[in-house]
């Protein structure tokens, strides 16, 4: 998967639990651990959900602040019962939707799908260009999806969450989440094949 930094992956189930213990011991220092553990995931999702990549940082920071304010009012039992990652992603989704609604009432922002990518390995220049093109193209067509499909596709296929967790974030049954993912993928394929200059789906190249 593209993002191996999700702490609740199958190999380290205990991370969420450790973080809850840290929150219960000291909310502020525990919360620093929570931010550290989940900021890559929240930022990556925000980057793909928001129309402007420049907003991703604001949106994910805002989501963490909302989460902190909520946690202050939760008792130990409620904190222990929290599934942190889907809970944080649900907050992020709501904030992103509200921001999009507010933005819709204002004049259009300048079009911006600039790649904010910073590759961790060092691929060739050609590969870098290619990956940037793919990212830009995908970013553009993702933005054209209905919100629920975009969220479903990003969580399942960009972030690599299990379908059950996607369903939790969307607040729907697993089957419905699957259907949103599937429809989103079909719509993406349609949009990509419509594009005149698409290198993504007309050649045999795989993107890795």
């Amino acid at each position, binding site marked *: 998967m*593209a993002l191996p930094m999700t702490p609740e992956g199958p190999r380290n189930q205990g991370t969420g639990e450790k973080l809850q213990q840290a929150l219960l011991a000291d909310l*502020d220092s525990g919360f620093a651990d929570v931010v550290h553990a989940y*900021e890559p995931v929240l930022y990556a999702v925000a980057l793909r959900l928001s129309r402007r990549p420049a907003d991703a940082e604001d949106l994910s*920071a805002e989501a963490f*602040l909302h989460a902190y304010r909520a946690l202050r009012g939760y008792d130990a039992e409620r904190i222990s019962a929290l599934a942190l990652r889907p809970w944080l992603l649900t907050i992020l989704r709501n904030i992103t939707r509200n921001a999009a609604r507010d933005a819709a009432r204002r004049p259009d922002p300048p079009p911006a799908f600039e790649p*904010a990518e910073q590759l961790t390995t060092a691929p060739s220049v050609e590969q870098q260009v290619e990956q940037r093109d793919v990212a830009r193209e995908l970013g553009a067509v993702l933005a054209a999806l209905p919100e629920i499909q975009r969220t479903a*596709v990003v969580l399942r*296929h*960009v972030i690599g969450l299990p379908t059950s967790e996607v369903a939790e974030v969307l607040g729907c049954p697993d089957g419905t989440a699957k259907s949103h993912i599937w429809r989103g993928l079909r719509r*993406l394929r349609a949009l990509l094949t419509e594009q005149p200059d698409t290198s993504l789906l007309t050649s045999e190249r795989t993107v890795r």
Partner: protein
Amino acid sequence: MMNDLQAVETALAGLSAPAAPRLADRIFGSWLAAPSRLGEVFVAFTGDGVQFLRSAESVGDDAGAFAEAYRDRFGRPLRQVDRAPAGLLTALCGTPAASLRLDLRGLSDFERDVLTATRRIPAGQTRPYGWIAREAGRPRAVRAVGSVLGRNPVPLLIPCHRVVRADGRLGDYMFGPAHKAELLRAEQVKTEELTAPATIAAQRIQRAQRGNRCVDNPAEPAECG
């Protein structure tokens, strides 16, 4: 022609992961303890400037109580740091610093106007509450000015101790009128310019202050040099 959704899935999974910014800097407030003209103070700030200041004395020398008051008011987690923002330490000791930035987000327009007007009062001078009300554009809101100053997030840095009653009495101060009189005296405010009741009050306060180690003991490490 592509019939397989697999290619789309692969492309999505291949979207490279950008390095996440350090969000903690934007989420957490920072705090430290510092010496000031009021003895030790606790100060909280963000990347945008100083947000909150309380004297250690006013929170029972309990940094935890200060942190809790900050969280209640600003809804942010706090972490302790070593480094003070530019201009803070000199400003706490009475030298205004142009580099000192204040983070006054989250205040109403009126609150901000009151605090901005108050910030303009130079050391060695005082202004009545009514003057601030006029400067803030609401000349009749004299009492409201008092409440805003009573909640001043950054006393000393915004010198609410320089706002006095129209009849010359010093009026209230969030850390107590004794400290107000003490700060004004240190700024060479001529007490004869204030009317008799204020002078009497100031003298009474002065007497009450004698023996207060925060004021009289220059060796106290929490004091400004």
